[in-house]
């Protein structure tokens, strides 16, 4: 069925696509290269792209300056924790809206999304005070709660759109054949909803990992995740470009690798109902 693309056209589109891809990717690539330069080379106004003295001294410096593993561990616990809790709450909700919709379903969905439009800063002080009184400041649990709630609307919406497209006829057919509710869930619904749940999980982990506002304002030392780790490199202190690059690479590497490996799973459910 697929017609062969004429060679000149293939070459042209490939060249254009690679150029665009490289331009978009360049800031990340440049960060990676800079992280292996000496500070002098990193600050040089005539940049070198490959032929410089490669060194790992920046990684060593970042490693000794701050406790990377503790930040990374906090990031893992917070993003995974908030995602799992959010899934446990949003899957049933999305499920119920997709399979027994009422007149109010769309309204409820839109209301949920609108809660996400409020600038978090509008409620920062109350949350801060409540957290202080509850002893949740600078705890992983505190961030798990906030991030779970703030991402919940997106999760419900993504899952709703995914579940909605599961054909209901299959269920009817299964019922005709005498399947019980339990069997229905195990053999039909669960396998069909796994891709949607997987991509909701991935998206939420990414959002939580990269979340900066609450992480910066509600943590100081014990529960600070990698976003706080990197913010401590925000103000210049002499020559710091290479060290900043090394720290940045360390902060994004885990999630970038995860995202690349799970690209397919992420994209499959990330349509938000964009494809009918």
């Amino acid at each position: 069925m697929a017609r062969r693309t004429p060679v000149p056209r293939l070459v042209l589109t490939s060249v254009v696509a690679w150029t665009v891809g490289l331009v978009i990717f360049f800031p990340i690539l440049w960060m990676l290269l800079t992280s292996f330069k000496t500070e002098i080379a990193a600050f040089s106004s005539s940049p070198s792209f490959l032929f410089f003295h490669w060194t790992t001294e920046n990684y060593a410096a970042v490693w000794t300056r701050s406790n990377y593993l503790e930040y990374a561990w906090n990031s893992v616990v917070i993003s995974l924790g908030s995602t799992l809790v959010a899934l446990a709450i949003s899957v049933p909700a999305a499920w119920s809206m997709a399979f027994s919709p009422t007149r109010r379903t769309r309204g409820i969905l839109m209301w949920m999304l609108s809660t996400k439009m409020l600038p978090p800063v509008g409620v920062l002080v109350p949350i801060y005070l409540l957290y202080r009184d509850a002893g949740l400041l600078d705890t992983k649990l505190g961030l798990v709660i906030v991030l779970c709630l703030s991402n919940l609307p997106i999760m419900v919406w993504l899952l709703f759109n995914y579940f909605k497209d599961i054909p209901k006829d299959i269920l009817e057919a299964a019922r005709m054949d005498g399947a019980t509710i339990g069997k229905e869930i195990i053999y039909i619904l669960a396998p069909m909803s796994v891709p949607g749940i997987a991509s909701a999980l991935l998206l939420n982990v990414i959002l939580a990992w990269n979340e900066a506002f609450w992480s910066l304002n509600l943590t100081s030392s014990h529960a600070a995740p990698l976003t706080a780790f990197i913010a401590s490199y925000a103000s210049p202190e002499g020559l710091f470009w290479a060290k900043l690059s090394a720290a940045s690479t360390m902060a994004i590497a885990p999630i970038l690798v995860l995202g690349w490996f799970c690209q397919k799973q992420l994209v499959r459910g990330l349509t938000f109902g964009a494809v009918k």
Partner: protein
Amino acid sequence: MATQQTQKLARILIAPSIILLLLWMIVPLAMTAWFSALNYNLLNPVKTFAGLGNYRYFLSNPAFLSSLLNTLVLVGAVLAITAFFGVLIALLLDQVIVGRRVVRLMLIAPFFVMPTVSALIWKNLLMNPVSGLLAWLWRLFGQTPVDWFTQVPMLSIILIVAWQWLPFAVLILLTALQSLDQEQQEAALMDGAGAFDRFFHLTLPHLARPLSIVILIETIFLLTVFAEIYVTTGGGPGVQTTNLAYLIYSQALLQYDVGAASAGGLIAVVLANIAAIFLMRIVGKNLET
């Protein structure tokens, strides 16, 4: 087979989400409303009743109007850039390409980068007027390097944020393109429709729905952009890059004026709701199934 029993089950299943979100919305909002009626400064232990004073103060602050404008400019510009280039890049990726998988990996990478990191990388490695790569590029072509965050601070923020959100638009639009009916395309081709006709009459209408999704989701996140401003300009120079979120932040945590910040917070909430209604009206039409 919507029996009463399943309806009841459905309500029980959805209850936790609704209750939690209601609490999450109402409790802090009520407290914010209360603080907004007080003279409440973190440096001053005495709180007194202020009535509507904080609102008057916040609304008459010239920074308020400019922050409102900045918020709109930021959201609008980033939406326009990501939608336009998103469509172009999605169309490009929909072609047969040598090494398409690698190109796709490169294109979606910015989506995984945390805002603090991307802002710091752009500011220090790319946009630095002396050692930045863009300055080098400018000099290569005999131009005077741009001092990005001083000369065009808002544009700089827009570029950074657009770079972060472009992959999201591309992903959604590409998925939609790949579901486009091939036979219809072939038929149009047979009938002698040119590339432009096919794009404007077949492809673009097909993209209306995914584009609405992109606009909706991005707006939700763009209205509350914070980290990118926090680590680059700190809202400056002056208030040139202060959006509403950053203005409230600086009122509360840099000037310790909780009362005024709370009034600002409530005003932001009202504005966000107006934006939400507006958006749902426009976008909602495309989302009806």
